């Protein structure tokens, strides 16, 4: 990664962290403040991104919405990756029959498309932020797990570890000095790519009315509300959507700069 790319990536991450953790610094208003007299204002100086059907400021809501959207995305990815590291490592290091069994479980997880799996889980649990995280996390886990498995298998058979054996390194030194650090780097790239996609899926659930309940500001939920007024107030749909695209595209760019390949998703 070049120096400029590093600085830009860090700036991007810092900006969204700041937005998620301290949204009031960037948008001091109240995202829930209703002002019916100001409903459906076009974007302008008073309201940068316009206002919605209840006169709430869309800019303030987009900024405050970052917290929920990013939290669900990151938490789901963490869950999926955690599960994947356990399953993938187990599969890679296990005898053949257990490896096969784990692969079948992963394939079963794969066979139910992500959003369908999310809906399935919500059918059992009812809607909410928690189920959304579990649903997105579970549906992304098999992809990660396959990568972890192949990564560890490749590394185990690598000349690098062979050379370490020949140099007389013990098993612990090989794992600590070579296996873990070299396996982590592509995972980091993958996690970055994955967060972008997880944010999209999480927003999709809210859009369908199954994630964050209204009136809390969340990008997917805002888009769902905006759809009703599409012909009246395009800005209600445009800006939350752009926020999702910027986060997802930024995550993809950083992930690719870290050497990630979309193939692995």
């Amino acid at each position: 990664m070049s120096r400029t790319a590093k600085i830009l990536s860090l700036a991007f991450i810092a900006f969204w962290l700041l937005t998620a953790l301290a949204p009031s610094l960037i948008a001091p208003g109240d995202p829930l403040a209703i002002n019916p007299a100001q409903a459906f204002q076009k974007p302008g100086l008073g309201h940068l991104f316009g206002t919605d059907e209840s006169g709430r400021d869309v800019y303030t809501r987009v900024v405050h919405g970052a917290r929920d959207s990013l939290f669900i995305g990151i938490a789901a990815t963490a869950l999926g990756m955690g599960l994947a590291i356990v399953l993938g490592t187990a599969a890679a290091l296990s005898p053949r029959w257990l490896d096969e069994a784990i692969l079948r479980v992963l394939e079963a997880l794969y066979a139910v498309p992500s959003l369908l799996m999310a809906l399935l889980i919500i059918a059992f649990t009812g809607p909410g932020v928690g189920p959304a995280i579990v649903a997105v996390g579970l549906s992304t886990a098999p992809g990660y797990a396959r990568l972890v498995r192949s990564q560890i298998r490749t590394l185990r058979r690598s000349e690098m570890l062979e050379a370490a054996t020949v140099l007389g390194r013990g098993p612990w030194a090989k794992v600590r000095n070579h296996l873990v650090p070299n396996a982590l780097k592509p995972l980091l790239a993958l996690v970055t790519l994955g967060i972008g996609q997880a944010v999209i899926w999480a927003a999709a659930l809210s859009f369908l009315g199954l994630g964050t309940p209204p009136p809390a500001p969340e990008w997917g939920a805002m888009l769902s509300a905006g759809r009703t007024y599409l012909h009246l107030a395009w800005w209600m749909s445009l800006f939350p959507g752009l926020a999702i695209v910027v986060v997802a595209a930024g995550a993809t760019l950083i992930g690719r700069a870290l050497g990630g390949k979309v193939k692995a998703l």
Partner: protein
Amino acid sequence: MNQPVIAVENLRVSFGGTTAVDGVSFTLHAGRALALVGESGSGKSVTARSLLGLSGGRAAADALEICGQDARDLSDGQWRQIRGTRISMILQDALMALDPLRPVGREIGDALKAHGSAPASARRAQVIDALAAVRVPEPERRARQRSTELSGGMRQRALIAQALIGDPQVVIADEATTALDSQLTALVLSQLRDIKEQGRAVLMISHDLAQVAQLADDIAVMRQGKIVEFGPAIEVLGSPQHEYTKTLLQAVPSGVPRFSSLSPGSAVPQCPARPNTTSAALRVNSLSKSFGGHPAVQDVSFELPRGKTLGIVGESGSGKTTTARMVLGIERPDSGTVELLGQGFVPQRESARRELRRQMGAIYQNPLGSFDPRYSVSQLLTDALSQGRTKRSSQYRDEVARLLEQVELDPALGGRNPVELSGGQRQRLAIARALAAKPAVLILDEPVSALDVSVQATVLDLLDRIQLETGTSYLFISHDLSVIEHMSDAVAVMYQGRIVEQGPTEQIFGDPQQDYTKQLLSAMPRLR
């Protein structure tokens, strides 16, 4: 003499701002072979590709005539008329030069499809004929197979058939024998000789003077985009005029006695009395190993005396590398033992022999894969010196510097990542890392096979010097007979998993007893 089929005058090719070919001129006549010899980056391949209009850069020349036609300002459509029918090319690696996803018959037939519109059945018949002409058995069946399904020899023949089917007057062989073992090399060389005798002109691109000597009528030595010496093969090889040609010739190891320098700059110290011990550094007793029922190594035994070199030579698939891996304790043998300095090393629990491992180092053909990609040069050496405890302690700085000096690497390279080093530098680094533990034995598996001749010469000289200075024993594995002859005190010849003959180097090379050894030696290209 009649008109040349190719006449090039002052050819220049550049990529962006860098000049790859800088004023090259030569002529080539029908029924003759010209060799362009040089090392990687000398511009020889770019020169050859310019003759097909495929240099990929900006090419210009004062004259560029192909079969009497001025080819300087041809459109791509006009070039396509020439390619395949007047001039064609055999590329280096048959596995990569034939699309692995398509049957070879289709690949060969594409050359016909590109020119004219013969009906499919006629094309198929022609493809079969072309395969039969290069002596491919069962050409109908082979034509339907993909290159990955063919044996190495079959693949090479298919590649040659592909170049000949359009009946070209000129055939370019771009490193067509590089990386092939000696029997395949002999096969390709004899095919090229046939092509020459059919009255076609052959332009041979190679880095290997000994191979070139088998075929070429004329030799042009290239360096940094220029032809530095040009003349009849006998003169260039017999009485070279240019310094660089002399360096290249000196670098060819075949027939050069042990510890004689192959490279100009390096002084191998004159033989101090080498320890004439009979005690074995390494003793291997009847190692055997099968993979899925197929025996890879059978009953291999040898002894490596202290301070000496044992060469193991054989073709690919002969079991050399499996033997090396068993000796190193990476592959577990089905039966047999290995003793290192009189102590049992194989079979043995890993924890029990870890201490003994410091006495044995390994050098691979491609050292890059054996380095952790996150480590810099000095970190790799610090890691080796500290036995894996640290990679950045300053405590080892002096020792790292001493190791770098020992393998003649610039200390300034310490902060670099091995990816940024040249092939020769990487191999030196691998040697330095192996030497960190002051081992008694080095296992060298094809250590110079991926290097240019002159770089190979410097690495071999370095290995010589280190052996004289430290008394390290070498188990030297190679498919290259001339390297083995130059480096070894004793030689073991492997064939189909067995050692068919072993003995002192002079005896094996001077008076071979077994048929296989004789066959192998007769295929060996020689300069001297």
